[in-house]
């Protein structure tokens, strides 16, 4: 079950389902549980929301009020998670082997899984979607409602336009001062870019920044159809051709670019996971999360 295939992502838009499948094979926990949860320090009742654990429902109160209430406990986790989704046009790139699967869907799944884990651990999490030159910001919060909100935002994200410019990013990524984790999923085809600079800046502000570089199998191996013409979805003009004669040059250029990306990440002390969308998301996720424990 750990290796749930990427085909599931292609077949369903139900992120809940995918998260359950992925996390079922993943085991528990990102970081050592700063226990929140049920009943250490009771703080308040709140109405039941779908996704709450049944054992936290106060049954006596149900008997009295005929309504479901959940006992909220004081939480002591102060870690906030920030999910950054690159939804620029290049994320529309489909897998050439699995129909219906594209980079955006894969990135969306990874981030949704991280959000679900954060919710289970009681961490606050927020979402930043970069699409069409704009920054769409969802403030950090806790709880199942927040998870539903974030999943809905993720689902609504459309791959279009280019990444926002430096100014927009600067105003958009004004995070809390508290230490936070930043999970950014992008294809990093633009590097250095306003996004990479913003992430490096966050790292310098001592946030824990982790990058997932989303690629397709065909991109890595140069397995494109030689018959069709191609255009760059984010840049104007020009038609590109692919063929056996151009493959070596393509791989060389690509290698050059991504080694620069890796070097920059290493220099900035930012862990980078290279994910191919044909890979099982569980493996990638484990890798992405594990690196945190290493430090």
């Amino acid at each position: 079950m750990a290796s749930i295939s990427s085909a599931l992502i292609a077949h369903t838009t139900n992120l809940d389902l995918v998260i359950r499948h992925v996390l079922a094979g993943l085991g528990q926990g990102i970081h050592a549980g700063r226990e929140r949860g049920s009943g250490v320090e009771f703080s308040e009742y709140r109405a039941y929301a779908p996704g709450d654990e049944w054992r936290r429902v106060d049954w006596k109160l149900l008997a009295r009020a005929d309504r479901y209430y959940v006992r909220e406990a004081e939480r002591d986790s102060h870690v906030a998670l920030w999910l950054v989704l690159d939804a620029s046009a290049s994320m529309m790139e489909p897998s050439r082997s699995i129909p219906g699967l594209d980079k955006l869907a894969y990135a969306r799944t990874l981030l949704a899984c991280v959000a679900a884990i954060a919710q289970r651990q009681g961490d606050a999490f927020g979402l930043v979607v970069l699409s069409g030159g704009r920054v769409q910001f969802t403030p950090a919060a806790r709880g199942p409602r927040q998870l539903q909100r974030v999943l809905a935002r993720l689902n609504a994200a459309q791959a279009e336009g280019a990444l926002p410019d430096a100014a927009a990013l600067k105003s958009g990524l004004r995070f809390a001062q508290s230490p936070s984790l930043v999970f950014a999923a992008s294809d990093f085809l633009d590097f250095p870019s306003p996004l990479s600079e913003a992430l490096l800046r966050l790292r310098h502000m001592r946030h824990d920044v982790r990058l997932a570089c989303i690629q397709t199998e065909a991109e890595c191996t140069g397995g494109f159809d030689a018959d069709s013409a191609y255009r760059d979805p984010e840049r104007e003009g020009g038609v590109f051709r692919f063929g056996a004669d151009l493959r070596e040059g393509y791989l060389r250029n690509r290698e050059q670019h991504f080694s620069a990306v890796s070097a920059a990440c290493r220099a900035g002390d930012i862990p980078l996971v290279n994910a191919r969308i044909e890979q099982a998301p569980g493996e990638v996720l484990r890798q992405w999360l594990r690196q945190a424990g290493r430090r």
Partner: protein
Amino acid sequence: MAAPGGAAMNSLWWLALPTLLLPVWWHRKKRVQVAAEPLASARFLPRTEPRQMRVWRWADVILMILRCLLLACLIAWLADPVLPWRGHTVVVAEGSDARWAEQQVQAAGFKDAARLSLPAAEALAWVRSHEREWKPDARLLVLGDIPMPAELPQFRHPLELRTLAKPAAPVEVHVAIVGARTGEWRRLFSALDGPLRAVIDDTPGAKTALIVWDKPEAPPASLRAPLWWIADAAAFPALATAPAVDGIRYADSPHGRLWTSSAWPPADAAAARRLLETWRSLHAAPLPYTAPSHTFAASKTPASTHADGALRGILMWALIALFALERTVTHARRR
């Protein structure tokens, strides 16, 4: 009726049929630009020129068919084709005795043949000019009081002509007799035999064809008729010097044509008959002579090129419908 030359020109329009190739040519797409699909990592590839593939592909087949049909229809309309569609036919001259015609049809074995009613005088000429409408194995039977043609006609189909002379219909001619000797003139006209009948009026009217002027006075200037018989030429000085034929002097005047003779009204029966005969031969249409029954074998005379546009109406409607359809489809395709 189109002139033979015109009809021959018509069939030249068929040579325009190769224009049908034009829409076919237009509707074959020669070059198709290769559609560029987005590729995120295209930036690692060298830029190339947009490639065009040479592909022969049909575009808008329905529109092409419509346009071809439109052209074909137009050419057919111009060429005005004649389709052989008539089978065995009985041509019955108008006004023939129906029972006699039925007997003849039974006798000639044309029981199932189509009937066609034509004016007797034009029947044979019409059949000759429309002969292309008959199928090659068709036989024809022509019945009725068919006048004899001047020369023996030839037909491409076996044609049987059965005639029955019909008593000629009486023709009435209005005659006005003005003058003293009315009785004598009336006697003269009552001796008229044959289909021509004289109706005697006392005063000339619009229908009067002949005025017998038996008075010394001149007629009023407004009085006109095609023919005047003047018994007393004193009032018509023009007749005095007019040429004479067979004892009758004749002249043209503002009143009409004038005849006069000093021996009028005719005294004896022979003179009266001569006058009436002269009148009838000069002023009444000759009586047709009924042709004898005859069987024409099929001959190899060239077909007449006459085409009277029997298909033109249908073709015109088809043309309009096709044009409307073509416009509609073109418009729909643009949107």
